[in-house]
């Protein structure tokens, strides 16, 4: 199935796909950096801040680019014009659910992490930053599943 889709994709759809994939890669890179820096910080304030700012300055913009690209290619490929009685393929549904629910989790992780980083100066915030690293790792795992579904296109 993916072979057929790959071979028939018109060139006009490629900029949208590039934006979608590039955004997703930046998102994954931001999550990887954020989770690594936070998980390996061992209480070091510099690494904790580095981890939080990676989520804010990379993962969030990456998520926005990925989501804009997704909507663009969704429209370019005519998925928004499917008849009501035709279901979207499973890989598309998985991608949408993970992207949107993941965006919400990312937002929550940024709020908890932001409060945690602010409390660092007063010697607190470690619990909130632990929650942030768990959320970032969950997101990373979820986006691996989404990337697998997008690429392998299970029925």
């Amino acid at each position, binding site marked *: *199935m*993916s*072979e057929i889709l*790959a*071979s028939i994709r018109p*060139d006009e759809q*490629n900029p949208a*796909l*590039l934006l979608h*994939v*590039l955004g*997703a*890669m*930046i998102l*994954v*890179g*931001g*999550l*990887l*950096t954020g989770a*690594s*820096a936070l998980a*390996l910080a061992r209480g*070091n304030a*510099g*690494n904790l801040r*580095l981890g939080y700012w*990676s989520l804010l300055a*990379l993962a969030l913009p990456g998520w926005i680019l990925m989501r804009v690209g997704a909507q663009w290619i969704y429209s370019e490929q005519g998925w928004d014009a499917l008849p009501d009685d035709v279901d979207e393929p499973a890989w598309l549904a998985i991608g949408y659910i993970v992207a949107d629910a993941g965006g919400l989790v990312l937002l929550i992780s940024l709020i908890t992490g932001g409060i945690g980083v602010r409390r660092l100066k007063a010697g607190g915030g470690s619990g909130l930053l632990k929650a942030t690293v768990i959320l970032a790792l969950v997101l990373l795992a979820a986006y*691996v599943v989404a*990337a*697998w579904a*997008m*690429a*392998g*296109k*299970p*029925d």
Partner: protein
Amino acid sequence: MSLDDWILALHVLSAFAFVGGIVLFWVLIVASRSIDTPADTIRIQPIATVGGRVVMIGATGTIVFGIWLAFSYGGYDPWDGWILAAVVLWFAASGVGARTGAEYTKAFDRARELESAGRLEPDAELLALNRTSRGAALHLAGSLLLLLLLVDMIWKPGA
């Protein structure tokens, strides 16, 4: 899902790991520009180790699964121009990446040297090594090669 679909999924996941690791190193390059003490240099080394392993796994998976697909996928051949271009870009990006790594390893080595000598204060040479413009230029070149590789994979010119 067919075996080819699984291999394609692993190929794409490997590409995500490869680029994700490169993104991680951009963060470390920017963050380390203001670092001039051994302790602060050493504290980012574990993150760099994670990045290095992820890049290694991603780069290996990308080429191995990619070549597999080039042989097994219907409609594509390993000698197609866009596939050959991708292989050349992969080797170029990997070569540049290895040289970038060697450039930044100098800062970690210097930090360890200073730490073992008990010199924990800011060090001008360490700052210069952390700010290496050669390392940043190499990383930029590697990133641009990967971007070209991604464009080649998506557009598949001549396919």
